[in-house]
């Protein structure tokens, strides 16, 4: 079989859901820059509503990413090998921890990936709520705009970092 169900879940988690959220955040950053307070140009009401919809989609994607990651992919990753098993290829956590040169991929990368994505989902939810509640106000109120821009940048940086660490882990010890 080309792909097992475990590897398909991992790809859905990292590429479709997490990757989709990251692309969406990049688009939001572009629009925030284009419609920034100093630019003098603002979106139409329809464009502001679509911007809110994009933020809602990002929040949904990031929540789906953390739920699938925590409750579907992570249990596969941390499954301990049965006693006497020497080939640890099917047991990524044990494989990484057992090699001193690779152990950081668990102790730093996976430990970070267990928690930080939940933070990004919370930040994205706040952004989605504020933009959806009154889309035009986001671009008329300097305080709201500044806060949304800051949270979006933080969210994008954290999602990108988690994606990069995920690539490293899955390159060395793939869930398969």
């Amino acid at each position, binding site marked *: 079989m080309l792909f097992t169900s475990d590897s398909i879940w991992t790809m859905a988690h990292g590429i479709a859901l997490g990757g989709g959220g990251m692309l969406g955040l990049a688009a939001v950053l572009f629009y925030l820059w284009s419609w920034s307070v100093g630019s003098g140009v*603002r979106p139409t009401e329809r464009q502001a509503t679509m911007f809110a919809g994009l933020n809602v989609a990002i929040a949904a994607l990031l929540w789906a990413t953390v739920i699938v990651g925590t*409750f579907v992919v992570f249990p596969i990753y941390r499954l301990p090998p049965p006693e006497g098993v020497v080939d640890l290829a099917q047991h990524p956590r044990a494989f990484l921890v057992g090699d001193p040169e690779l152990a950081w991929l668990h102790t730093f990368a996976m430990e970070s990936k267990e928690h930080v994505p939940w933070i990004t989902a919370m930040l994205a939810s706040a952004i989605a709520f504020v933009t959806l509640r009154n889309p035009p106000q986001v671009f*008329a109120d300097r305080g709201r705009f500044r806060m949304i821009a800051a949270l979006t940048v933080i969210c994008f940086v954290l999602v990108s970092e988690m994606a990069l660490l995920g690539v490293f882990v899955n390159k060395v010890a793939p869930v398969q």
Partner: protein
Amino acid sequence: MGTKVEDLASRAGTREDVNGPAMAAFVAAGLGTFYVGVIVLLNEIGVYAAPAIHPGAGGVSGRMIFATIAWLGTWFVLHQLWRRRDIGPARVYRASIALIAAGVIMTFPPFWALVS
């Protein structure tokens, strides 16, 4: 493509003028991040280990579900308190960024070694 600032401001003003609900969402996000950091740090230094709500995922399932419930509860309370008020955005900005920074630092594995 775009529209004038004044047009948009006048349209926005017809819907909702108070910023309390938005500021509540931002502060709650900061506190939610801080809760995640605290519960992770308490676990790593051996003070409190949340139970495994999902056996396959282990302790992380309890930690993150508890933090999420605390975040949603905080957001609900702040929303109720501020829904008809205007809140100073500068203070909210500083508080939220500080809480997010503290929360993220507490989830940073090298920080656990420093603390413990």
